[in-house]
Structures are given as C-alpha cells and as structure tokens.
C-alpha cells in the first residue's frame, strides 16, 4: 500500500472542468492517484466528488482539462492537430480497465449472480466460458457469497447485491476500482459487510478511488483523503491527518457535522 512519487500515476487529472447547463460542477480539479493507493473523496453533497468519479470512466464527458488513466488520455484522441472525441467502441475499450461500483448496485436483474459476473468477461474480453465461471466462483468466495451463484439479484439483500457488484467489476481484472458511495443505499447493519470486502481489496493492493461518507473507513483504510467542496479540492493529505487535524475551516465544519450524524 501507499504510492511513491516516482511511480507513474494510474490516474492523472489535470484542470478538469465540467458544467451541467451553465452550472459549474467541477472547476479545475488536479489529482494524481498512484498504483496501490486508496484515495477517499469526501465532501458535502453537490461538491462534485461523484461527478469527478464518473468523469474518470467517461460516464460524464468533461468540458475542460484532461484525464489520463495509466498514461492514456481518456475519451479523446490527441494524436492529430485537433482533439477528437473517441468513438463508442474506443471508449468501451478504455473502460474495460476500470471497474466501477455504484451506489444503487445496478446488477442486471434478468441474470443470476453468476451470469452477472461472467457477462462482461465472456462478451467483452472473449474469455472462455469455463475460465470465466472458475474466476467468478473465486471472486464469489472472496466476497463470501459462494452459495448464491444461482440466485437472482432481487433475492439478495442490499449488502449481498453490492458485494456481487464488486465481484462483477473485479471479474474484468481492472487496474483501478471506482466506488461511488457504495454503502449509501444500504441499511446500517449491512454497511459493515461491504466495507469489509473493500478493506480486503485494499490490502490486496488494488488501486481504489472511493466516494464515501464513511469517515471511519476513510481514516482506517485510505492512504489519502481528498476533501472537495464547490467543485474544487479544498485540501488533501494522509487520511489520519486530514480527519483528525483538518487545516481548512470548511473541512472542519463538514467533519464535525458528519461525525455527529454518524454518532447518532
């Protein structure tokens, strides 16, 4: 765990800007994430942290700046004199290297758990069926759901669905995992099981960017915390420092508010 400055960053965002109908959501974000690093994005709702995460795998198209993943410019071709939007299939190829876990799980409801996990490896990577199933079973045992492979998502609890969603993303062997508030839609007693899987993943050295409100998770698991507000990065630094000794007033207020909520 822990990135070093001389390694090449997995994610390099430079001056990223994004607006929705004149509402500026991101106002020049600069961020580098190094291999094996776990970065938590914290901030009040509307601060742009989810939008930034979605920009990394092009679920949102950025209006300004550049995002590089593993040295490759995301969503655009800059080889010619003019920047060009990438085609649908070229973007799909770039997304293969990035796993994403959504707040609302977004499992495919018409497929069983196993089918959910093997779908992309079979369809996109062209993995042999037997190999895909073997890998899916490994992943299911990692997230503790080996007995659920024949179930449909609607038969699982929220926590179980989210763990399947993590396994589904990992089945593509991504270089980077993005988590968009993975525990926000869960009943409180189900949050722990999902965080446990994420903690295991972090210990295995996966590079992770996590948008979350789980301060304890950020403090204990993240290498670095990035605090965003109003579309800019307010401050960032080692997780424990930022959470226990925030330098900025906005960070202090946010942490005080959220910690009092979570203490209830």
């Amino acid at each position, binding site marked *: 765990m822990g990135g070093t400055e001389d390694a090449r960053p997995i994610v390099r965002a430079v001056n990223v800007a994004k607006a929705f109908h004149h509402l500026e959501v991101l106002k020049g974000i600069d961020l580098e994430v190094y291999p094996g690093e776990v970065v938590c994005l914290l901030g009040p709702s509307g601060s742009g942290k989810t939008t930034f995460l979605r920009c990394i795998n092009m*679920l949102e198209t950025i209006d300004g700046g550049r995002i590089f993943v593993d040295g490759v410019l995301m969503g655009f071709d800059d080889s010619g004199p003019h920047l060009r939007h990438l085609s649908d299939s070229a973007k*799909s190829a770039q*997304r293969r290297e*990035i796993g994403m876990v*959504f707040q609302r799980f*977004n499992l*495919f409801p018409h497929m069983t758990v196993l089918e959910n996990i093997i*779908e*992309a490896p079979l369809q996109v990577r062209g993995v042999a069926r037997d190999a895909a199933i073997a890998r899916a079973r490994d992943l299911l045992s990692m997230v503790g759901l080996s007995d659920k492979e024949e179930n449909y998502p609607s038969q699982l609890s929220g926590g179980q669905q989210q763990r399947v969603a993590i396994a*589904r993303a990992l089945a593509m062997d991504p270089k980077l995992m993005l988590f968009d508030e993975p525990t926000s839609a869960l009943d409180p007693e189900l949050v722990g099981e999902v965080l446990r899987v994420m903690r295991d993943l972090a210990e295995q050295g996966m590079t992770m960017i996590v948008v979350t409100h789980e301060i304890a998770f950020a403090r204990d698991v993240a290498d670095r915390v990035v605090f965003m507000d109003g579309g800019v990065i307010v401050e960032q630094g080692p997780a424990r420092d930022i959470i226990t000794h925030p330098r900025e007033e906005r960070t202090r207020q946010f942490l005080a508010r959220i910690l009092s909520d979570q203490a209830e």
Partner: protein
Amino acid sequence: MTVSQVAGAAERPGRIDAKPVRHPWRWVAVGVIVIVVAMMLHSAVTNPKWDWSYVIQVMNYRPILQGLWEGTILGTVLAMILGLIFGILLAIMRLSTNPVLRGVSAVYTWFFRSIPRYVLLTILGVGIVFLYPKLTIGLPFGDSIARLLHLSTTFTLFTFDTRSVSQGIVIGALGLGLSEAAYMAEIARAGILSVDRGQVEAAHALGMSSARTMRRIILPQAMRVIVPPTGNETIAMVKDTSLLVAVPVGMELFNQAQIVANRTYRIMPVYVAATLWYLIVCSVLMVGQSYLERRFGRGFSAPNAKAQRLLSRTGEH
C-alpha cells in the same frame, strides 16, 4: 394451566371467531346468471338451426383448414415477425441522438398509424401490382447505370412477380406488418425507456459497447414490458387477417367460410365454425403469452417457485 386462566379471559382476548359479512346481492347476481346461461344452453341444444354436427363438420372442411393455416395463421406470423423487427428498429431510431433517424421514425409512425388497415391493404394490393408489376432486388439505379454505360447486365439479383396470385399473402403480410411496426415501435419505445438508466451505466462501465448493451442488457429487460401488449397486438392481428380479402387474398379463414356459406346456403353454422376457430387460435395465443411473460419476468417476479405457480394460476403478473 392456559393463558386465559392466568390473566382472566376478559382482559386477554383469545382466538377470533367472528361471522363473515353477508353478501345477499351476490347471490341474486348468481341466480340471474344461472338462469340466463341455462336459457342459452337450452336453446343451443333444442334449436335445430344451430346444427352443431354441421358446425363441427365445417370446422374440418379442407378449404376452411387451409384458409386457417395459409391465411390467418401464416399471415399473423409473418406480419408480427415483420412488425416486431421493424418496430424495435423504429424504437431504437426514435431514441437515438441522430436527428435524421429520429425524424424518419416519427414520420413513419405518424403515416402508418393514420391509415386504416383495410384501406392500406387495398391500396397495396392495387398499387404494387399497378406501379411495380416486377420488383427487382439489385444495385440501386442498376437499370439506369447499365443504360448509361451501355452494359448488358442490369445488376439484378432477384426478381419478384407481384401479379402472381400466390404473392398475395406476401403483399398482405407486408401491409399488415408495416402497419403493425408503427404500433410496435411505440410499445418497444416504452419498454426500452422502462429500463433503469443505471443498467446502461453499469454495462458501459464494464466496457460493453452501446450495441451490445442494447442487445444483452436493455432489450431482455424491456421485453418484460413489451411482451404483454405484444400479445394483445398478436391476438388483434389474428382478427385483422380477415382484412386480407382487401388485397385480395382469398385463402383466409373468414373468406373461405363465406365461400362455403354461399355455396351451401347453411350460413349461420358456417359462421359459427369460423368463430370457434378464432376462439381456439386466440386462446392458444393467450396461453403462449402467459408463458412468455413468465420467461421474461425472470429475476423480477416472486422469488420462489411456489409463488410463481400461484401467480401463473391466477394470471396475475
């Protein structure tokens, strides 16, 4: 020692044994219905003009059966296949970001929804034969290019003689299918829009292209919404094949029934025979519809097999 003895029966009420609400009017309705049904059955059995044995005989007449298979059923199948494929295509066009495709789809739907099927079939029957007695499939403008370049070939791959009588059913099914596509497009569009946006995002995030996402993720889920109204459309199509006579297609159930009736002068039993066939075909389709609804409802409906059996038995879904 029971609970009531400990706490006293008055303070802790036990098992409820209450009389149900009475529904006297239900019994009145049942009585009226029983009498009406009995009268109908009595008349059906005693009035010799119903002539049931002749009805059964007509149902098995060769021309009637041929009309049923080669007109009504074949026409329905062809028209619905065409309508379904074109309809989904039109729906995808309508939802695309390309303004040309969106416009074409909207105009198509407007045009075919505005024309009565009987009129459409008449016009196609007359029009295609009048305007294009020979349809050729080949290079666009192949004829003109060949003439311009003084070539002997016309780049024709396939020729279709529209005047041939056996092609009537093709024109008829084409007309019904084109008209059906306009309705199916709206149904398919509603189905596609019913799928949660998060499904597209999840598929894209896994590196699936838009086309693959549509085929593997969106359409299978949209089918759950598309199947019930499509079943209704199919059942309506069975009945609309009686309009094929406008093309004209002679080999069709009701037209054949009319021919038999005119020849034998036993008109009513022949029409009853045709009606019974329509009832049978539509009933079979309704069974098929409920099977398809269960098939595409996988993962959405009740989680255990027992509940699914119960659901299918009540026809609820």
